[in-house]
């Protein structure tokens, strides 16, 4: 099997990668830009760009954030546009200005401070670049773009404009994730040496079906074509098309592979992936993908496995698992999928001090099986279970949006600015090529750099 490899010496590559990572991932200081806001008593004028499903999820979170004025909404589909106007009016009793075209909105609207972009992936880069160049601070949903060059353009535009650009890897602002990384993994090193990382997003068939639309409210063909869609099916199901998105690995996997990189403080050195259309045979993207990543971290080698399935939800849903010599942390946006395990054995220090300090909670012991007996003499006793000491009491995206708007006010640093999002996302762009070519890809600095 041929390996796609660069001609850069490995040592140089690692050093350069480490330098890039060191700028943010390791040091945990991802945001370096701040934006001052005009004197409007802290009010931020916001435009909503894209009000489909994800746009509405973000809006529901933004409703809880004080000081936002939704001045304009933009969506190419009249139906979504009307919904956006209705949602904003219901919130602030004032109709926002509505636009079909982003350029018209940018040319017309005065006094906008920020835009929240939740358009299909292939529009992320053009929209973000346009808005940054128009002087707006941008919150853009992940994946940054459907191509790595599109993502690069976003970083360049953000840095050239001096405006903020937060990418929607919302776990980076989730207090459960931040607490786990800062207090448990880095602060108290409860995992010991992390040697393996697992992650998955298993989604059921019912959750993976094509989205249909009532023909009565469908868009006209000329509007669809103008904005890059060949028909309404493609508009509603852009995630299945190669020219419009990266498929399941970027749609679902990007969130979790970002956590691999963030928690390990490193980017992978290689990827080897496989995938196929096991069930949805007519779709352009694979319906399931499995990827292996190798990491060289300051604490040693780490192997990571990630799978995304769109054909079954069994097996624990979605989570990321960091497995170390002394403990394992399973973390997920779903609190019930989060678990912490302490390895048994005398060489593992007691975690009682963590309980006393309030950093962990004991997990209620599971009932013992009725049938006793050793199946295999080499079997390990079950590890001791623990839980995080608290939960997040907000919608999943709210803290990340709060962080963005606090940064717009100059009160915080971005938790996931475009450059650091790029460093973390870059390896994901090579998963599909590896699966398609059935070849491992050893990354070159050029491949992963801006």
């Amino acid at each position, binding site marked *: 099997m041929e390996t796609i490899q660069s001609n850069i010496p490995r040592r140089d590559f690692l050093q350069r990668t480490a330098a890039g990572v060191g700028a943010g991932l390791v040091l945990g200081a991802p945001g370096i830009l701040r934006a001052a806001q005009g004197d409007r008593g802290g009010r931020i004028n916001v435009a909503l760009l894209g009000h489909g499903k994800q746009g509405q999820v973000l809006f529901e979170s933004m409703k809880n954030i004080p000081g936002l004025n939704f001045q304009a909404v933009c969506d190419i589909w009249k139906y979504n546009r009307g919904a956006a106007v209705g949602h904003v009016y219901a919130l602030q009793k004032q109709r926002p200005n509505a636009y079909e075209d982003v350029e018209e909105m940018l040319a017309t609207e005065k006094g906008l401070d920020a835009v929240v972009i939740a358009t299909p992936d292939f529009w992320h880069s053009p929209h973000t670049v346009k808005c940054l160049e128009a002087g707006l601070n941008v919150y853009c949903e992940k994946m940054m773009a459907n191509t790595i060059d599109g993502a690069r353009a976003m970083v360049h535009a953000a840095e050239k404009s001096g405006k903020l650009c937060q990418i929607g890897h919302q776990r980076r602002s989730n*207090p*459960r994730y*931040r*607490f786990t990384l800062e*207090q448990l993994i880095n602060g108290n090193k409860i995992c010991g040496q992390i040697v393996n990382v697992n992650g998955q997003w298993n989604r059921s068939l019912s959750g993976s079906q094509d989205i249909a639309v009532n023909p009565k409210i469908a868009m006209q063909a000329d509007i669809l074509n103008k904005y890059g869609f060949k028909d309404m099916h493609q508009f509603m199901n852009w995630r299945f098309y190669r020219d419009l998105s990266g498929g399941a690995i970027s749609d679902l996997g990007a969130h979790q592979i970002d956590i691999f990189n963030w928690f390990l403080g490193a980017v992978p050195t290689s990827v080897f992936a496989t995938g196929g259309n096991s069930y949805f045979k007519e779709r352009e993207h694979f319906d399931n993908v499995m990827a292996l990543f190798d990491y060289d971290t300051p604490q040693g080698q780490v192997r990571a496995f990630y799978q995304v399935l769109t054909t079954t939800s069994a097996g624990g849903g979605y989570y990321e698992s960091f497995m170390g010599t002394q403990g394992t942390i399973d973390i997920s946006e779903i609190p019930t999928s989060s678990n912490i395990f302490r390895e048994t054995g005398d060489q593992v220090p007691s975690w009682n001090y963590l309980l006393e*300090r*309030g*950093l962990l909670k004991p997990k209620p012991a599971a009932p013992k099986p009725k049938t006793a007996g050793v199946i295999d003499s080499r079997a390990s006793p079950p590890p001791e279970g623990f839980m*995080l*000491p*608290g*939960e*997040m*009491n*907000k919608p999943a995206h709210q*803290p990340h949006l709060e962080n963005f708007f606090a940064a717009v006010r100059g009160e915080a640093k971005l938790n996931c600015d475009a450059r650091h999002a790029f460093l973390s996302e870059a390896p994901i762009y090579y998963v599909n090529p590896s699966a398609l070519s059935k070849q491992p890809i050893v990354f070159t600095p050029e491949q992963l750099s801006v």
Partner: protein
Amino acid sequence: MSNECCKTEESAECGKNEPANECCKDGAAEGCCKTPCCVANLGYVYGVMLLRLWLGVRAVQTGIEKYAGIKGVDQRIIIDGKPSTYGLTKLDLEKVYDLKQYHGIPASMLEPFTKEPLMPGFMLPMYDKVLGPALLVLGLVILLGIAPRTSLFLLGLLYISLTWGLILLGQDNGIAWLGTHMIMIVMALALAKHNRLCVLKKW
């Protein structure tokens, strides 16, 4: 249940404090006749008073509980003795009373009732609305002693309606529990003539 010392039942009423010789004209034993009638009936008086108190408090508090609910209050977790700055919270559950929390029929019973063929559909929402206020009103009326016989009778009818519902759901323990309430109501009715501290003793 009349006092043997007393000539008539009416003379046994407490508060008249008749001298012993006045109620011994029918030649009852001398020792007995030395006890004032009201003192001799004190047991019945206390008995019915306790029954009224029990049944009244039971009904009033049950009615109030229909307005009770559990409210979750997020508290910041404590790490090293200080509130955490991460935004992690734990949910502390508090019992609250509020008109918005009202639930006549417990939520766990509502659905099973809707599946009962003998339960008229239109009655459920009506009964759900009436039950709490009815318990409150009847309990208060019994405590205050307003038409004690009638109010006890109405409370008995209410408990019969509850019993019928529990029979439909096959909840035998609850039926037995309500049965003890019925016995107490009957006892209170039987002792009604000894009622004291009543706003309206009639009926």
